[in-house]
């Protein structure tokens, strides 16, 4: 999916790459702290994914639009300032929507500021590309991060509590696997998803290999 003339990726690829090929959690293994800590329920995971995506998309857009104005000597400090601002905006927004959700996400909302995914995309992508591509990159990476967190959160909630979004999914006799909502459950689930992810990627790579030429 490269452009025909200059070898630059097509616009669609900037979005799609974050979903699978460069997925922030399953491939780049970035932002593990919130990914493991708040993915104990589907609701928390989805909220953290959306909050991170919001910050990622807007900070990418702002940093990209200011890339010719910000001297490289002060770029990291400026990026942090922009990211922290959007995190504060998200913090207020979540408090306005639901204090319970704000409490459940706890310190991890503030810690979005130091999520290496956001600063990484700002430095590696937004500071070198135009607003359109940076927005698409933020959207794709944010969507990939949200999907990954939701995958972790849904599995952990279903097995650890027998519910999904608080709705009972198993028979009342189901004995929840408490370990899945504990921190170790986060690692187990992540390992399982990585296994699935890598297996699918390897199978697709094998399928894409050209057939051996007949002797």
């Amino acid at each position: 999916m490269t452009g025909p003339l200059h070898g630059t990726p097509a616009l669609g690829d900037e979005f799609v790459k974050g979903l699978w090929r460069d997925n922030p959690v399953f491939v780049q293994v970035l932002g593990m702290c919130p990914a493991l800590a708040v993915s104990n329920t589907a609701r928390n995971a989805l909220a953290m994914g959306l909050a991170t995506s919001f910050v990622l998309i807007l900070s990418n857009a702002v940093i990209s639009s200011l890339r010719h104005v910000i001297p490289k000597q002060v770029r990291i400090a400026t990026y942090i300032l922009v990211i922290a601002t959007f995190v504060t905006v998200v913090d207020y927004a979540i408090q306005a929507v639901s204090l319970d959700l704000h409490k459940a996400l706890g310190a991890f909302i503030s810690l979005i500021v130091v999520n290496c995914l956001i600063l990484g995309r700002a430095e590696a992508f937004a500071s070198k590309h135009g607003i359109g591509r940076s927005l698409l990159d933020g959207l794709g990476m944010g969507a990939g991060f949200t999907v990954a967190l939701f995958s972790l959160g849904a599995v952990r909630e279903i097995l650890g509590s027998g519910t999904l979004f608080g709705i009972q999914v198993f028979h009342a006799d189901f004995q929840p696997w408490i370990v899945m909502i504990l921190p170790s459950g986060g690692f187990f689930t992540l390992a399982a998803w990585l296994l699935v992810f890598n297996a699918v990627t390897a199978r697709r790579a094998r399928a894409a290999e050209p057939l051996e030429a007949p002797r």
Partner: protein
Amino acid sequence: MSGPPVVQESPPSAWHMYRAMVGVGLGCGLLIVSVFQLTGPTIARNRAEALRRAIFEVLPGAGSSRTFRVAANDRFEPTEAAGQPGDRLVHAGYDAEQRLVGLAIEAEGMGYQDVIRLLYGYSFAEDAVIGIRVLESRETPGLGDRIETDPAFLANFQRLDVALAPDGSALANPIQAVKRGEKEHAWQVDGITGATISSVAIADILNKSAAWWVPRIRRSLDDFREAP
């Protein structure tokens, strides 16, 4: 042996750097203030609702509540639920027959990461704290935040002794945190292993708050008798 001349980019002037940082800072500040103004009323409403729910949680049996502020001469007078800025507030809970069940008191103090804000229920009949609920905390996830979830820790506050000394001016026994499993007296708080600073902070917050409130409440108990 001389290669092509190396062109070095001249560093930007200090003015350019200041301009970028101050400009971005001003923009960011403006955005934060705008969002704060926009969401402020909704957040205040949510907090008031959360406080109302918390009052009934820390005062089991209460069905209605009324807020009081500390007035002159350390007496208590009814006020609006949010009070006025600077007011010291206490919330009285009443049962279905309009009898005073106890008082819910807000307290705060420094935890491990940031300020912990909590609400605790005081029963004058039992002379004890009968429940707490953490309203706001940013303690370390998985460690310090167990002050909100650890059942053994929360059991400390089902009946935590805050009886007054005979002269009624101070607590007979200051609330103190002890290592888990070493609790011997009703005024001690069994700490949490792995969250020592946070659990000690809770005990300190309760001790300071109870030492200030309980003598005043006991002296003016009649101020709360009138149900809403």
